[in-house]
């Protein structure tokens, strides 16, 4: 048996599972959308605050990248649902005693969660675009084009699955408890809020302006926002590079931690 073929079979099986997990799909989609609609109306006047460098954009465009990042983190936390079910029913162990083994199971799980999250992000981006068209009556897509929108989803999904997903999977293995895994979400929710997700940098308190540079969410957000609002200009490429570097480093660290946790749990 070829491990690549085995991984693909498991990947397809995981994707098929989602049709029986509608709550997971709906919940991680509906919450960001509600927040998007709520915040864009509540804080609409923020665009008029003096010193706002994004005053030229309506507020709902400013927070679109934040909603994308929030969907990525929220969706990644929920990604543990199917894995936890397999762990708690003993099916994960059952599959370990078949050609599925350990590594193909984990790789397939990450692949399927990435696919689901990517499609969910594309859906969120589409909804925000439709909202923009409805509010502005200008039927244009951002300067970065379709490829830019896809790249935004890819960056956000990479952060979500690479960083949040690894932590969530490690917690799932360690605790086998959905509640414990869900407890990770406030941490990332907090990290998103402690960035320029909802308020531009010059309007943040001074201490936060200095601290924000150490927040990984900020760098991912910066890349997505640059692509979304400014298109593919030089500064955007720099932001993309920085975000990829952060994602790579953090994914490496969390994947290593995850590996150690899984190994210690299984032996």
């Amino acid at each position: 048996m070829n491990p690549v073929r085995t991984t693909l079979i498991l990947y397809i099986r995981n994707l098929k599972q989602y049709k029986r997990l509608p709550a997971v799909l709906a919940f991680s989609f509906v919450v960001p959308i509600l927040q998007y609609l709520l915040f864009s109306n509540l804080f609409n006047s923020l665009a008029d605050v003096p010193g706002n460098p994004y005053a030229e954009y309506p507020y709902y465009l400013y927070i679109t990248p934040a909603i994308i990042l929030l969907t990525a983190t929220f969706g990644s936390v929920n990604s543990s649902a199917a894995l936890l079910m397999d762990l708690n029913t003993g099916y994960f162990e059952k599959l370990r005693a078949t050609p599925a083994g350990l590594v193909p199971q984990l790789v397939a799980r990450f692949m399927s969660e990435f696919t689901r999250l990517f499609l969910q992000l594309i859906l969120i981006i589409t909804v925000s675009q439709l909202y923009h068209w409805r509010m502005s009556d200008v039927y244009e897509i951002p300067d970065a084009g379709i490829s830019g929108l896809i790249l935004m989803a890819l960056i956000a999904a990479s952060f979500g699955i690479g960083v949040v997903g690894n932590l969530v999977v490690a917690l799932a293995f360690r605790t086998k408890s959905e509640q414990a895994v869900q407890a990770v979400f406030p941490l990332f929710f907090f990290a998103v809020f402690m960035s320029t997700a909802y308020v531009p940098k010059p309007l943040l308190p001074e201490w936060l302006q200095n601290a924000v540079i150490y927040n990984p969410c900020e760098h991912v957000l910066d890349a997505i926002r640059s692509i979304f609002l400014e298109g593919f200009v030089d500064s955007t490429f720099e932001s993309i590079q920085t975000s990829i570097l952060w994602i790579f480093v953090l994914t490496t660290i969390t994947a290593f931690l995850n590996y150690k946790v899984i190994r210690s749990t299984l032996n």
Partner: protein
Amino acid sequence: MSQGKVIEVKNLDKVYRSGTHAVKGISFDVMKGEIFGMLGPNGAGKTTTLQMMGTLLKITNGDISILGHDIHTDERVIREKIGFALQEAGLDNLATTSELIAFHINLFGFPKSEIKERVKESLTLLDLHEYANQMIPELSGGTQRRLDLAVSLVHNPDLLILDEPTTGLDPVHRSELWTLLRTLRDERGLTLVMSTHYMEEADVLCDRIAIIDSGEIVAIDTPDNLKKSVGKDTIEFSLSEELNTEQQSSLSSTFTKDDIEYLTDKLLIKVDDGEASLLPTLKKIIELDVKVKGTKVKIPTLDDVYLKYTGKRLEDE
């Protein structure tokens, strides 16, 4: 692979990270077509041993050869050739019965064109047709066990490992499962290795048993030989009158002296085969004018075997 040996376990040791020494240098072989049982209480090391054989746990020390493959180097090949039904029926709660079987057939690399037919065969083998389209959480415990077996058998493995396969099943389902396992052995030549803490199960189902206690194998043989190792069968005669000296003297000359024991209103006679010896023995003591009001044949059980080798009763564990 040594002639006819499906499993060779040598000096197997398992020490968990916590420091628990779960398996202590055990060795045994399992022959082709054999139903081999590991009998012992919870925590004896049965599951740990089976999980090492099923590639689910790393070995601390020792060697395992499964179907001629070294577990240290050929984990993947071994996983393709064995079926493993874990203690809890591990099933996908988000699939139907036939979806799960089809998935496992696909996982073992069978061509797509064969999947439908093989699903039908599996459903027939385990009598699961009526549950084919039912979601797995809706199935009863017994049906889930059968489905677990079905998915463990989709690839026609040469060896089936079963970890306490009947735990949680009612007596009817338990008996049905025993019949099924015997059929699989007889018709497919399957080798079965199972753990159990039910003495009756080990006695009725297994060709050979390893009695395991605190991570060590304390005895290994056929159920009959193990029971014989405890001692002879005993026929207990309840008496309506105490034996007089003359009767006792006659009994001593009729039977071996060491095989007779006198109690107040009972006479105990040890024989090789209690069931077969009951009537001839009864005839002999009636001829001596002993007044018998009842008889009972006591045959050593595996619990007696367990007591002999561990100093504890399995029933109390």
